[in-house]
């Protein structure tokens, strides 16, 4: 738990918040309490002035009772702790607490200290120095005291009582003390509020971060971890679903791509490994079988030579020699096959290859009551192919067809024909790049079994992706966004965002803007951006004109393939045969046909049958 990214992030953010709020709170409380104290000080000062002024007249008349009464009345107000008047020597003359009257106040006492600290009585003091905050006893409330000296005036020493002489400067001191209990309470409350605010803020912040980290980081990481474990244990078919549109999504997508590449590589490795071990096996078997075969062949041919006068025996011996020679050829072809695991293209006749393929599976077909109808074009020209590989393709397809028919019998039709087709609808884009040479091919979305071309589209203020059909002229695009038919669409490279719209060019069919991209080493591909318009142009391919193809069609009356399964059949490891198949057959076939620059198409209807059409070009496209 403590090692989790989420937790670490929460701790980091919590600490930052704590420090920020703490510093803020400290200065806030400081200024708050300062302004509160200043306010109290101001009002205390005002109070002492009020006392001084209200007793002034009585003082002049020396009406001590009245002064006492006034001071008592004021001193009884809430919040005012004490109001005293001291004379010059420090005796308390008036006090709101009657018991204090007559007592002497020491010069070192709180109320006198400000003036007498320097051992010499000061005569005028600024207000700041006249106030003091102190506690009467430890643990009790704070108290603010303010002294205000009563200066000698003309009216004082000329008064009738002659209490003061003219030479005195200060006649006495008015000392007012005010309890700070209320103020302290307010300050404490303020502190409390800020602490509560800080704690709530930190908790809420942590929860929010925790939530988002869980959502944006933890969950995708968990999914990725699960996927890596799946791949680690060998399930290369596992793909991460729910891909987000953020960095994690990019990671997940590249992970999916990696597993896909891995599974393809494994497939190839598996295939070549299979071929290699088959080759070793064949070589071993050939050598082992050659010795006994030599015995048979030498003896029989020797006998044939020696019994020339016995025609009856000769016939039988000739059969033995002929059949042994045939075995010799079989062993030889087995070795040739092993040697040819590396593709070797030669001139070959498709009809011959088909005939060879059929001869291999013929027995199996007749056992399953399957009728094989051959519908071959007699005058097929030779074509440059790897005869072994192409034969493997036909055998695989016929075996698949017979599996689809099952034991109840049916018909497989094999036909070959020569076609001349324009590249439109036949050729497909194998590699497409944007003007900045970013790869546009998307291996994740396949259209017609081939990787599609992914572009970013902007329409009506919305953004999304469109997967374009790689087949020239087919336009089975997959739209990731809603496109308003009437509005124009912008196409761009998903990686760099460069526009793929051709400036100043309009679709000759509908007048919409035209998109373009480069097909690596095969010119420019152009097409109409409007949904539903099928105008496309690929000059480099069109220029080469019509091409001759040899088409082989293998159809069966078997169980067919459902519409949902149809796009998946060329994917490695996809099998409908359960434990019986490896799911490799059609993927390998696709690879072989693609290697020959051919195409393979499948049409199927459930319970009616399936037909595979393979077209191989007569001329190899450069």
């Amino acid at each position, binding site marked *: 738990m403590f090692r989790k990214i989420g937790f670490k992030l929460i701790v980091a953010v919590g600490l930052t918040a704590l420090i920020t709020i703490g510093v803020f709170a400290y200065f806030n409380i400081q200024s708050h309490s300062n302004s509160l104290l200043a306010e109290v000080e101001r009002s205390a000062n005002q109070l002492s002035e009020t006392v001084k002024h209200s007793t002034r007249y009585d003082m002049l008349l020396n009406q001590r009772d009245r002064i006492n009464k006034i001071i008592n009345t004021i001193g009884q107000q809430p919040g005012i702790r004490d109001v005293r008047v001291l004379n010059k020597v420090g005796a308390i003359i008036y006090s709101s607490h009657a018991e204090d009257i007559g007592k002497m106040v020491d010069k070192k006492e709180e109320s006198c200290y400000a003036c007498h600290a320097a051992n010499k009585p000061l005569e005028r003091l600024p207000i700041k120095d006249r106030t003091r905050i102190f506690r009467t006893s430890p643990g009790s409330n704070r108290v603010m005291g303010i002294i205000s000296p009563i200066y000698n005036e003309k009216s004082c020493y000329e008064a009738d009582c002659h209490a003061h002489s003219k030479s005195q400067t200060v006649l006495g001191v008015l000392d007012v003390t005010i309890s700070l209990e209320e103020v302290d309470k307010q300050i404490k409350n303020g502190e409390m509020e800020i602490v509560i605010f800080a704690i709530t803020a930190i908790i809420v912040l942590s929860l929010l971060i925790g939530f988002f980290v869980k959502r944006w980081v933890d969950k995708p990481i968990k999914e990725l971890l699960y996927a890596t474990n799946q791949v680690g244990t060998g399930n290369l078919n596992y793909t991460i679903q729910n891909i987000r549109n953020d960095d994690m999504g990019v990671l997940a997508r590249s992970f999916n791509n990696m597993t896909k590449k891995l599974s393809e590589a494994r497939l190839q490795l598996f295939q070549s490994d299979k071929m290699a071990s088959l080759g070793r096996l064949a*070589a*071993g078997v*050939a*050598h082992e079988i*050659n*010795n*006994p*075969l*030599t*015995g*048979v*062949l*030498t*003896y029989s*041919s*020797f006998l*044939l*030579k*020696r019994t020339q006068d016995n025609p009856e025996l000769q016939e039988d011996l000739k059969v033995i*020699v002929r059949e*042994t*020679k045939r075995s*010799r050829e079989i*062993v*030889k072809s087995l*070795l040739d096959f092993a040697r040819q695991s590396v593709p*070797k293209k*030669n*001139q070959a006749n498709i009809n011959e290859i088909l005939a060879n393929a059929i001869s291999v599976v013929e027995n199996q077909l007749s056992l399953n009551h399957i009728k094989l109808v051959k519908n071959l074009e007699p005058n097929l020209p030779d074509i440059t192919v790897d005869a072994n590989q192409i034969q493997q393709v036909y055998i695989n397809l016929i075996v698949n067809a017979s599996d689809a028919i099952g034991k109840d019998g049916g018909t497989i039709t094999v036909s070959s024909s020569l076609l001349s087709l324009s590249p439109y609808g036949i050729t497909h884009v194998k590699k497409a790049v944007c003007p900045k040479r970013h790869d546009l091919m998307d291996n994740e979305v396949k259209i017609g079994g081939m990787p599609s071309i992914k572009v970013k589209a902007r329409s009506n203020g919305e953004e999304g992706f469109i997967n374009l059909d790689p087949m020239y002229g087919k336009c089975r695009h997959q739209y990731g966004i809603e496109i308003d038919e009437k509005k124009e669409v912008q196409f761009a490279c998903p990686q760099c965002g460069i526009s793929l719209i051709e400036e100043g060019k309009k679709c000759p069919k509908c007048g919409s803007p035209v998109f373009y991209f480069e097909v690596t080493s095969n010119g420019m591909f152009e097409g109409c951006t409007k949904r539903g318009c099928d105008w496309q142009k690929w000059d480099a391919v069109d220029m080469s004109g019509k091409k001759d193809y040899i088409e082989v069609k293998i159809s069966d009356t078997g169980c067919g393939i459902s519409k949902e399964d149809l796009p998946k059949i060329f994917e490695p490891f996809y099998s409908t045969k359960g434990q019986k198949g490896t799911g490799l057959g059609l993927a390998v076939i696709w690879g072989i046909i693609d290697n020959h620059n051919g195409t393979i198409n499948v049409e199927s209807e459930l319970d009616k049958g399936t037909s595979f059409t393979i077209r191989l070009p007569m001329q190899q496209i450069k």
Partner: protein
Amino acid sequence: MNKQFDILVIDDEQVIVDAVSKICAAEGLKVDSSINAADAILKIKKNVYKIIICDIMMPEVDGFQFLDEVVKNNIMSPVIMTTGFSTVENAVRSLYNGAIDFIPKPFTADELTNSVYRGLRYLDIQKSLAKYSSGNNDASIIYVPCPAKYYRLGYSSWASPENMGSILIGVTDLFLKTIDPIIEIDLLKIDDEIIQGNSCIQLKTRDGLNHSVLSPVSGRIIEKNEMLLSETSLVEKDPYFKGWFYRVIPSDSEYELKQLTPCSSDRL
């Protein structure tokens, strides 16, 4: 030298030794045999054989080690190797190392006797050559050796690399001297693949024998000498130039030419 034998057969399979012995005996040849090469090495040191037929793949001492012994002991007897298809490359190596021919297993009685027949003729030529060489060192009186820039597979076929990268293939004069005059030539088709050490030409001779010529290189045939079909004697008249058989695009000439003997070494 206690006994006189014509042929020594060496093979680890008794059935093959028996078969070869019987076939050769029927041809009137005296046959000695051994089912392991170690014994055979002792035998060749004691006795003189006209021809030795030896298998390549054998336990303990194999055909190559045996061949080395033959060469080391200056034994004149021509050695014919037999081998399974899987060791064609090894067979080519054995020709380089001094064997005169090899027969891929399984073989028929005729294939064996044809090879033995050529072997005997080869021995005769070598013998008369030895006679001549005591006075005169020129082999060309008996046969024309192949030109300096050619390569040969054993003594039978030659390969001559051309400027365009193609290779011309034919048979040596020495091979022609070991067979009767040719009456029919059977060639493969254009675009066929040939493999080094595998049969690529069938020559039918006046004595009714069928001789197959082993290809010196692997590759695809792009042209064959059509003139030979109408005028078979062209081969005998000019075996190294007008009497070529195939023009081939080699599949791996650099490697394969190393397996062949350069004809320039014959002229030292």
